[in-house]
């Protein structure tokens, strides 16, 4: 009978396992007036100066309001918590904070809430990934040196001059500085952030139209409307539940089944059905994202006069219209400049600036590439990361287009890299031998943000190490210009330099896409392709 007792014992173990794991239960989803929306697990802890991707940014957008806010339709920076931001010389700014604003825990928003937050964000000790946003402020090199230990704890350019006023002194002239202050990294922080950091991270407290009700990392966040929100843009719904999805296909299926109200990234495989599936509840609007091909200028072969011709020829060999229509189903628009349509003509967007160089002209392309001495190394490889973003399809299409233009099936090949981390790693170590995929999502809707970080000598995202004295000079002059219109004109001249050298090949402007259920109305995406949650009405 030993066998039987053992079998019984085994059964008991299994039963115990069942009981032990059967905990939990019930659904955490919404309630009346609450909408559910798809979400991705934020990569970094949720701190304003440490969030550099859309998913974390989405939450910051709901729970924080800064000195400025970008209009969800036009992208224009408007004063929000700032009563005024004045300057005489484009280098020293006096900021006055409006009265009556509080954090959702009741604490008043003062000048100190900003200054402390910015000092925290800039300090090397705190490992904030957006620290370079404070790089224009005087004393940044002491607080965040390129190497070695920091020699100061606070930025010398920041001074609190009254309960609700402070001054900012920059280390260079930068006339559009106030317009950058709508970026989440510049958000104010309450005292509890500094006094009990761990607790704050578990449940962040801000001053926006929503407050965080509960947060289960990696799976869900419940945000509810903050009733006492003092701002002019209160939430028009009772709350938002963000649910983490690993795969946006599943999120889309959930929207079809009515289990989820909003998916803010319609998977490309579903684009052909989305209009009928959702009966018009589909949004596809331009966002401030430009995709380009960047070049390794540290490789001398790419840094010659001939190579410039080759780059222009390459640009003409790409059939942008066909690729955006067939592969992206018109969720991308062929690019004709190096900025984005969301800036608007007044903001510096100039349709057609690229001119004939961005038109598909296979005959001219072949001629130019041959005149320029052909592709350096005899063959073109386009490097991309294969793990996310379905880059393989369009890189292959671009190569096909180039091969057709040149009448040679082996002229261009894609070079996939397994992970995004490795792709960034190879770029960072200057290992590229040919063009590589580059995507730029704007931080703030300014023409400056599309040019300076990418093409200025030694700039943070100038991955190809392009350098041009005339471009740098024009950018410096534009930044020093106090008149906005003249500054933009100078930036456009600088963009002309980028065009004449074909420093990077513009491919297409990316749209934001979203689908939603019939429960919702007034759904829109802002220029950052994030849903304007507080405007959405439920039921």
């Amino acid at each position: 009978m030993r066998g039987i007792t053992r079998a019984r014992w085994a059964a008991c173990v299994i039963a115990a396992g069942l009981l032990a794991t059967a905990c939990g239960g019930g659904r955490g989803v919404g309630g009346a007036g609450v909408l559910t929306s798809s979400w991705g697990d934020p990569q970094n802890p949720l701190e304003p100066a440490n969030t550099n991707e859309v998913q974390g940014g989405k939450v910051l957008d709901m729970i924080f309001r800064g000195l400025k806010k970008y209009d969800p339709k036009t992208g224009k920076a408007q004063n929000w918590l700032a009563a005024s931001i004045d300057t005489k010389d484009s280098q020293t700014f006096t900021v006055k904070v409006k009265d009556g604003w509080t954090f959702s825990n009741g604490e008043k928003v003062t000048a100190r809430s900003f200054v402390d937050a910015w000092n925290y964000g800039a300090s090397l000790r705190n490992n904030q990934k957006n620290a370079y946003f404070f790089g224009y402020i005087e004393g940044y090199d002491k607080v965040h040196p390129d190497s070695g230990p920091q020699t100061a704890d606070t930025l010398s350019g920041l001074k609190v001059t009254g309960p609700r006023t402070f001054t900012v002194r920059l280390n260079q002239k930068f006339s559009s500085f106030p317009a950058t202050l709508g970026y989440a990294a510049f958000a104010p922080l309450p005292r509890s952030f500094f006094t009990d950091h761990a607790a704050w991270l578990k449940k962040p407290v801000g001053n926006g139209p929503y407050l965080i009700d509960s947060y289960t990392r990696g799976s869900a966040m419940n945000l509810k409307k903050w009733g006492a929100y003092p701002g002019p843009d209160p939430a028009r719904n009772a709350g938002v539940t963000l649910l983490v999805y690993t795969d946006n296909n599943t999120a889309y299926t959930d929207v079809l089944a009515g289990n989820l109200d909003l998916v803010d990234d319609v998977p490309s495989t579903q684009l052909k059905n989305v209009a009928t599936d959702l009966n018009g509840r589909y949004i596809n609007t331009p966002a401030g994202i430009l995709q380009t091909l960047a070049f390794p200028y540290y490789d001398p072969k790419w840094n010659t006069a001939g190579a410039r011709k080759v780059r222009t020829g390459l640009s003409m060999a790409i059939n942008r219209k066909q690729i955006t229509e067939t592969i992206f189903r018109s969720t991308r628009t062929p690019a004709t400049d190096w900025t984005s349509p969301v800036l608007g003509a007044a903001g510096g967007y100039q349709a057609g600036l690229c001119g004939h160089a961005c038109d598909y002209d296979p005959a001219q392309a072949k001629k130019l590439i041959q005149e320029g001495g052909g592709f350096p190394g005899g063959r073109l490889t386009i490097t991309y990361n294969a793990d996310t973003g379905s880059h393989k399809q369009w890189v292959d299409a671009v190569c096909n287009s180039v091969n057709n233009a040149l009448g040679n099936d082996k002229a261009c090949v894609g070079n996939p890299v397994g992970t995004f981390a490795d792709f960034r790693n190879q770029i960072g170590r200057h290992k590229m031998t040919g063009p590589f995929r580059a995507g730029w999502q704007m931080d703030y809707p300014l023409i400056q943000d599309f040019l300076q970080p990418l093409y200025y000598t030694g700039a943070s995202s100038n991955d190809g190490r392009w350098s041009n004295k005339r471009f740098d000079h024009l950018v410096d002059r534009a930044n020093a210009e106090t008149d906005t219109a003249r500054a933009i004109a100078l930036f456009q001249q600088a963009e002309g330099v980028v065009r004449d050298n074909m420093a990077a090949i513009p491919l297409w402007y990316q749209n934001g896409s979203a689908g939603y259920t019939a429960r919702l109305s007034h759904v829109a995406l802002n220029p950052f392709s994030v849903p304007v949650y507080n405007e959405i009405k439920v039921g």
Partner: protein
Amino acid sequence: MGRYVTRRLLQMIPVFIGSTLLIFLMVNVMGDPIAGLCGERACDPATAAQLKREFGLDKPLWQQYATYMGNLFTGDFGTAFNGQKVTELMGTAFPVTIRLTIVAILFEIVIGVTLGVLTGLRRGRPVDTGVLLGTLVVISVPTFVTGLLLQLLLGVQWGWIRPSVSAYATFGELIVPGLVLASVSLAYVTRLTRTSIAENKRADYVRTAIAKGLPRHRVVVRHLLRNSLIPVVTFIGADIGALMGGAIVTERIFNIHGVGFQLYQGILRQNTQTVVGFVTVLVLVFLVANLLVDLLYAVLDPRIRYA
């Protein structure tokens, strides 16, 4: 028996060290994880250097491995890039995957063994041919096809289930994903049981049992099935580990935040601590499951004894 268990436990140590070292090397070969942390733009060098120091990535690999193993014995699996303790991630992920695995194993045992016995006893009859064809279809269709199809039909078209599983992942919600996860193994269990039963049906001890006049169900359950289950138990035992580690596809389709989800995110973000930590635990699960299988032999067949 006691000595046998001790020897098996000691054998686990080199296997454990070897497999963790391998996975540690593999994750590190993929390049510098910090490079991907800052998004499309490069991390500024000072922050990158400091992050590396904080995660211990600036040290030589052997030293990283030694530190990691040292910490492991104090129960410290390190910190993921999003600031969460890996043990915390495990605390949320493993219960979910264990529940999913239990559902899958139950399906394998209940459906697989039952079908196996039915077909084994009726070899060559229409039932047998039908089930064999069915298992062939199940084996040849990839899991993600079965998963997406069931999700679309049951979840969207007919509305019987939610297409995705909620954060709580209760047993009820896991029935369909569990069935999808179990499907291929279930077919193998059916076939294994069938063959084994069919073989033993003609054995002497079965004939003796029938000749003794025992009731049919007693012959089948106590004599025939018990002796036929040994290969099946081996398969199911080894399958426990495979199901837990291999749930990536199923978990992704049904948005289940279990081990597969964490591993997928960890690999995508090249998060060494998460990947190595989870794989370490999975290795342990494999080893323990195999040990339990070997011990179960003695229960099923008293002739098998371990000195």
